């Protein structure tokens, strides 16, 4: 275990380095199934990072398309006609705070505090659901103002971008609820902290994507 940490460069000189990696190694060691991958790192966590790196390209494409199209609409409402910045700011704040509760859930599990881990997991899922509810309300309001999916180039690119993000958040909520149920069934002990960390990485990713969308789509005039 210590050897694996040294081999991978999760060194003594950087306190806290390799938290989830070391936890993952600890899990394998505890169950007697320690494995040494070619990288010395958890394959599951590495896979999630590769997925997140590739997802940057997906959202990069959607954001670029939006930037290309938003001022090229011939008719129908434009961004300044429909956006409700105070409302979206509250939604953004809610999603931002869900990242805090997610990391607190992981921290609680690392301490072995199962009860708080469940509370924070559920809180994160509820905050995510609040964000999605806000998005549904926003889309409905836009539709009432005459901005359908095919109204103009702005609406198509806007709904596609924010809709894809909404789907990501919804999938994250389902994963969080799965973790909560696993915990209730006693299948999420301290030794499985890496599972929570991996789902957490996904959750923080949808948060950082929204940080970009909020600025580029809503705030930049």
């Amino acid at each position, binding site marked *: *275990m*210590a050897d694996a*940490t040294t081999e991978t*460069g999760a060194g003594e000189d*950087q*306190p*806290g*380095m*390799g*938290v*989830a*990696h*070391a*936890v993952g190694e*600890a899990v394998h*060691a*505890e169950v*007697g199934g*320690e494995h040494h991958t070619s*990288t010395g*790192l958890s394959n599951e*966590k*590495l896979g999630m*990072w*590769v997925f*997140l*790196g*590739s*997802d*940057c*390209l997906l959202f990069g*494409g959607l*954001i*670029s398309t939006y930037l*290309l199209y938003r001022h090229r609409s011939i008719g129908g409402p434009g961004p300044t006609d429909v956006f409700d*910045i*105070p409302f979206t*700011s509250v939604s953004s*704040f809610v999603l*931002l705070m869900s*990242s*805090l509760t*997610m*990391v*607190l859930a992981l*921290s609680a599990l690392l301490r072995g505090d199962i009860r708080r881990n469940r509370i924070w997991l559920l809180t994160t899922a509820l905050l995510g659901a609040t964000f999605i509810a806000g998005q549904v309300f926003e889309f409905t309001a836009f539709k009432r103002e005459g901005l359908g999916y095919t109204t103009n180039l702005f609406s198509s690119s806007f709904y596609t971008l924010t809709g894809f993000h909404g789907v990501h958040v919804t999938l994250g909520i389902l994963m969080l609820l799965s973790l909560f149920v696993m915990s209730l069934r006693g299948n999420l002990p*301290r*030794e499985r902290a890496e599972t929570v960390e991996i789902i*957490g990485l996904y959750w*923080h*990713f949808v*948060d*950082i994507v929204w*940080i*970009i969308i*909020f*600025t580029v789509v809503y*705030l*930049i*005039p």
Partner: protein
Amino acid sequence: MSVTTEQESHAEEAAAEVERLEHEHPRDFLYVQIAVILAVLTAAEVATYNQDVSDALGDFQIPSLLLLMCIKFALVIMFFMHLRFDHRLFSWIFVGGLVLAVGVYIATLLTFQYWT
């Protein structure tokens, strides 16, 4: 060393590792501090929507917003996603995807700008 003894030894090392991680893992208080900073930065971003603030910033409005966005992005990936503490390979993979995305799409946008 028998297999059982070796497994017990691994289990002891694992327990010690988890204990070590508990001490080294950033405290909850640090996470709350980061969240407060993120909230303040978001408030600063939203403030630029105000006409007076927007007028005062002038040409600096968009660079200011982009700067605030980058700071928030960096804080989340460094502290909440633990890239500051984790193995560098994870950073390389993620930043690689990010740089590739930014490069490709800036090139795409510039191409459209050029041809239209």
